[in-house]
C-alpha cells in the first residue's frame, strides 16, 4: 500500500532529476536569504551556479547543531516571521534549544510525508492511532498527528505518560496503531502483563516507534510482548520531525523520502563522502523546506545507505537501523569504533545486557583497547580454560566485526561504574 505512489515509486532517474532541480533552487534561496550560508559559500569561493549536478553537493558546506545554536533563535530562517505558522524546538542538553520554524507549506509537506510513513507501516483511513508521543515543542506528537489527519485515520492525541489511561483507551477506543518511543512500548507491555491483560484481546496490530535508538532485540521483544508488528521511524526537528524515514513492511531499513531530502554518509573524521553501503555519519539536506532550509546537516547518527531496490516497490533509498552516535565514536589505530558495536557483540555472546567498559590507552605510539566485561553467573565456569575461551571468543568476534584487536578482561559483577549517561562506558587515557 502506498499513499502517493507516483512519488514513492518514481523511477530513480526522474527522482534524481527532481532532486537536482530542487537542490539548485534551495541553494539559491539560502545564498540570497541567509547571511550565514552566504558567508560560508564566500569563504570557499562557491556560487549557487556552481551546483550543476547532485555530485556537486559534496563541495557544499555542512550545517551543525552548533550553527543552529549560534544563530538562536531565528537566525537561519529564510522567511519573515509572518510566514511562519509553527515553531518547534529540540531539547538542548547544554544551554539553549535549537529552534525551527515551519511555513504553511512546510506543515503540509510534513503531513504528506508523515501520511506516507503511516501507510508504509500499514495504516489507513480505517486506523485508530493512539499517539503517545509527547505534544509540545517536541516534534513527535504534532508530527504524527498532522500525518494521521492528512491520511484520514482517527487520531487519539493522548500524548505521553499516564499509563493507566493509555491502557484504558487502548481497550475502550479500540486503538489499532500505537505511536510512542520504543522504551515506552516496552513499559506499556510490562504494565499490561502485570494487570493481567492479554495483548491479543486488544485491537492493536502495529506500532511505530522512534525518537530514540533501539536494537533488533528490542524490536523482537516488543513484537512478542505486545503481539504487534513494530516499525522504526526516523526524524529530527532540525530536518523536519518524525517521518524523514520509515520502515516499510519489509522491515529491512528505513526509506528516506528523497523527493524532499538528500541523504549522504560521511566519515565523521575526514568528512569525506563514503560510498553506499559503508557505515558513517548520516548527513541530510532539505530541498523543499521553506522556513528553515538546512544544507548538509550533520545528524551525528551512524548508519549506512542501502541502495538495493526494496521488495515493497518504493524507489527511495533506505538507511539501516541507527548504529550509534558519532559523538561516542572512538578512533583506535585509525579504526572507527562505536561502543554500540561492542555492545552488540557482547549481547550476542552473553545473551544478556552486559555491563562493560572500554579503556583506551596509548602504549608508546600504539593505541590499545581493553574491554572490561562483568562476568555473569551464567557464563562462569570452574575451569580457567573455559573462561579464557570466553575472552578469546569475544576478542575474535570484535576483531572480525570491527577490525581492531582488543584485550578482553573479565571482571567481577557490579565492579564497573554505573551511570545514566554513556560517559562511564568509555575511559580514554590517551594523552595526545
Amino acid at each position, binding site marked *: 500500500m502506498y499513499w502517493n505512489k507516483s512519488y514513492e515509486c518514481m523511477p530513480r532517474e526522474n527522482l534524481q532529476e527532481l532532486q537536482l532541480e530542487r537542490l539548485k533552487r534551495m541553494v539559491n534561496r539560502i545564498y540570497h536569504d541567509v547571511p550565514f550560508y552566504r558567508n560560508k559559500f564566500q569563504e570557499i569561493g562557491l556560487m549557487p551556479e556552481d551546483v550543476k549536478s547532485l555530485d556537486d553537493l559534496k563541495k557544499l558546506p555542512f550545517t551543525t547543531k552548533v550553527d543552529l545554536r549560534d544563530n538562536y533563535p531565528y537566525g537561519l530562517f529564510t522567511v519573515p516571521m509572518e510566514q511562519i505558522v509553527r515553531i518547534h524546538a529540540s531539547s538542548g542538553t547544554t544551554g539553549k534549544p535549537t529552534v525551527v520554524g515551519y511555513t504553511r507549506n512546510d506543515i503540509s509537506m510534513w503531513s504528506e510525508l508523515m501520511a506516507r510513513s503511516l501507510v508504509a507501516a500499514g495504516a489507513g483511513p480505517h486506523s485508530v492511532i493512539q499517539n503517545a508521543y509527547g505534544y509540545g515543542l517536541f516534534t513527535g506528537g504534532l508530527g504524527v498527528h498532522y500525518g494521521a489527519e492528512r491520511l484520514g485515520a482517527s487520531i487519539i492525541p493522548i500524548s505521553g505518560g499516564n499509563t493507566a489511561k493509555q491502557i484504558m483507551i487502548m481497550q475502550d477506543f479500540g486503538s489499532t496503531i500505537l505511536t510512542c518511543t520504543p522504551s515506552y512500548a516496552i513499559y506499556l507491555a510490562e504494565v499490561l502483563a502485570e494487570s493481567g491483560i492479554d495483548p491479543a484481546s486488544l485491537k492493536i496490530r502495529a506500532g511505530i516507534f522512534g525518537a530514540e535508538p533501539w536494537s533488533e532485540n528490542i524490536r523482537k521483544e516488543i513484537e512478542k510482548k505486545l503481539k504487534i508488528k513494530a516499525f522504526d521511524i526516523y526524524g529530527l526537528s532540525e530536518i523536519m520531525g518524525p517521518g524523514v524515514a520509515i520502515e516499510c513492511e519489509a522491515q529491512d531499513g528505513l526509506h528516506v523520502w528523497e523527493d524532499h531530502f538528500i541523504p549522504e554518509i560521511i566519515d565523521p573524521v575526514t568528512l569525506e563522502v563514503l560510498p553506499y553501503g559503508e557505515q558513517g555519519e548520516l548527513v541530510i539536506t532539505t530541498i523543499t523546506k521553506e522556513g528553515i532550509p538546512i544544507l548538509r546537516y550533520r545528524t551525528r547518527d551512524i548508519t549506512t545507505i542501502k541502495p538495493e531496490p526494496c521488495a515493497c516497490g518504493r524507489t527511495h533509498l533506505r538507511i539501516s537501523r541507527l548504529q550509534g552516535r558519532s559523538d561516542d565514536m572512538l578512533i583506535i589505530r585509525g579504526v572507527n569504533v562505536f561502543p554500540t558495536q561492542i555492545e552488540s557483540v557482547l549481547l550476542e555472546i552473553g545473551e544478556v545486557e552486559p555491563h562493560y567498559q572500554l579503556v583506551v590507552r596509548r602504549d608508546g605510539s600504539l593505541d590499545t583497547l581493553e574491554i572490561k566485561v562483568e*562476568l*555473569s*553467573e551464567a557464563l*562462569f*565456569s*570452574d*575451569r*580457567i580454560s573455559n*573462561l*579464557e575461551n570466553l575472552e578469546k571468543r569475544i576478542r575474535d568476534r570484535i576483531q572480525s566485526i570491527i577490525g581492531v584487536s582488543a584485550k578482553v*578482561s*573479565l*571482571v*567481577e*559483577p*557490579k*565492579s564497573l561504574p554505573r551511570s545514566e549517561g554513556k560517559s562511564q562506558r568509555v575511559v580514554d587515557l590517551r594523552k595526545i
Partner: protein
Amino acid sequence: MIRQVSIFIENQEGRLNNVLKILAENKINIRSLNIADATDFGIVRLILQETEKGIEVLKKNDIITTVTPVLAAEVADDPGGLSRLVDALTQAKINIIYAYSFLPKKTDNAIIIIRVEDEVQQKAIETLEKVAQINLLDRETLLLK
C-alpha cells in the same frame, strides 16, 4: 560426591581477602582452599564446612559462585599413596582436570580432592572403589575428618 564452591575473583589486591572476610564474618569454616590463576582473574575453589550457607552469603555479596562436583579420596600418607590413585585413573583413561589436598584434622592419612570431567565421574568412582588402599569419602565423612 563432594560439593566444591568455585568463586570468580579478579587478579587484584584485596579480592581474595574480600571473599575470605565474608566467610569469616558469617562464621563459615574453610576446610580446603585451592587457587587457580590466569593473567587477570583467578578461580578460588573451596570446600566449606557449611556449603549452602556459604553460597548464600557469597551471592548476597555479588560474588559469582558455582558448585562443582568433585571426588574426595583418602589414601595412606606415604610414598606411593597418591601414585596408586593416579595410576588407577590413568589405566581407566580418566583425565584429571585438577587435584589438590584436603587438610584433615583427625586422620594421619592424606585426602585428595579430584576433579574429572562430569561424564566420567561415575566411572571414576567405580574405578577408585575397586582399589584396595583407596577410600572414597562422601560429604558427611569428609567433613568429619
